């Protein structure tokens, strides 16, 4: 196909054609311990990659504007909003989603605590909150009240009023002692 130049651009500038077909980029990621190698369009958001390419629909899209934290996953040990990263940026990374919390049919202590403390109602925000809690508790087994509040400040819950979420994370910290 002949290269077309965008309007107003001087033909003299040799530019890699902007309107050439967009190449897919091959990426390799470990998600919940499983390796995946796929090619993705560069604009594919990490959350869409997880939900649509890998069928891991536990990671939710709430606001889609980097506010609510429903899409939070843990990448190389750090909580990130997966609606605000491109999948190509996760190349070579290890990702943990809510589906990876459970092990051998056993709920993770964080999941168990959310259930036991009624830390959820509709559940839409819950996967993101549990992964924010995961980053916190993997670095700090004795979080103060302030530590917990700071750790979940990027996660919005429209149902619970946060009090029970707070209690769930406190009790998960207790249950994870010595784990």
């Amino acid at each position, binding site marked *: 196909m002949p290269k077309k130049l965008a309007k107003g651009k001087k033909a003299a500038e040799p530019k890699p054609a902007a309107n050439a077909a967009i190449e897919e980029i091959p990426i390799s990621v470990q998600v919940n311990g499983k390796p995946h190698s796929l090619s993705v369009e*560069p604009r594919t*958001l990490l959350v869409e990659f997880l939900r649509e390419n890998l069928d891991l629909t536990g990671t939710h899209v709430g606001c889609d504007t980097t506010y609510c934290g429903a899409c939070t996953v843990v990448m190389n040990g750090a909580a990130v909003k997966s609606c605000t990263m491109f999948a190509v940026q996760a190349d070579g990374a290890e990702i943990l989603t809510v589906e990876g919390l459970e092990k051998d049919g056993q709920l993770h202590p964080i999941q168990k605590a959310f259930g036991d403390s009624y830390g959820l109602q509709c559940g839409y925000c819950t996967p993101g909150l549990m992964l924010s809690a995961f980053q916190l508790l993997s670095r700090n087994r004795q979080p103060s009240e302030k530590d917990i509040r700071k750790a979940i400040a990027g996660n919005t819950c429209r149902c619970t009023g946060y009090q029970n979420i707070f209690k769930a994370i406190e009790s998960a910290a207790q249950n994870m002692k010595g784990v």
Partner: protein
Amino acid sequence: MYPRAFHYHRASSLKEAVAMLSQLGDDAKLLAGGQSLIPLMKLRFANPQHLVDLNFVPGTSYIKEEGGALRFGALTRHAEIENSATAAKIPILHDCAAGIADVQVRNRGTIGGSLAEADPSGDWAVVLMTLSTEVCCLGAKKTRTVPLSDFIKDAYTTALAHDELVSEVVVKAPPKGSGGAYIAFKRSAPVYPTASAAVQLIMDGDVCKDVVIALGCVGLTAIKAKDAEAALRGQRITDKALSAAMEAARAAADPQSDMRGSTDYKRALVGALVKRAIEVAMRRAHGEQVEVGHIYA
């Protein structure tokens, strides 16, 4: 929401990123933490045809103490600065890093990206303006070092040429007897502040030898409150001097009325923040360990 389709280029060195920018022209943009750029692309306010990803360039994320200064690699994440004992030697830097947005945004967002974005509500420019800060700009032909006050030109406008990037941010350690504090008022964590105040001063006993006061979110760029500084410089910090500084800071502010508050409200707010920041800065200058956090509505 999908951004418009773009070509993705992964730079393996900063030099290569600069070369890519020159070659690709105006339709190319750098991608650092992506915490400003990706939301804008999703809303299609930004539609670059090429993205040059800096995240895979090794050795761009560091905090080094060298020759009486702290040097920050352009891709140093806010969270790394928040958790760094080296950065905490200048306490106002910790105040700033720890108060930006939320854990997730701080894990991605970078100091270089923040300065390059020059968002009128961004925290770093306000805080770094109270210190002696230089921005290292790497271009195809040379590297230049630009004082922060010359780097930020206007809202969303910097001294960077299209094919230049921020490679490092250098902050001189303040002299002995210094103390600083940064306090913002926010509606919630994952939003920019409504108003903020950064104060860095040098005390000699109870006399303020020198002071820099910068106001955030109340103008197109961070505003230096020169009259407020003059109200304190060379003075004992009495209640009267504090009130004069507050008044002068309110007068220096040039806020816009928006959903975060009216002009009058923001003026009143910024005065109160300046007072609190001065008080904490003074205590720190006297060697006290004071933890401050932003104030949430």
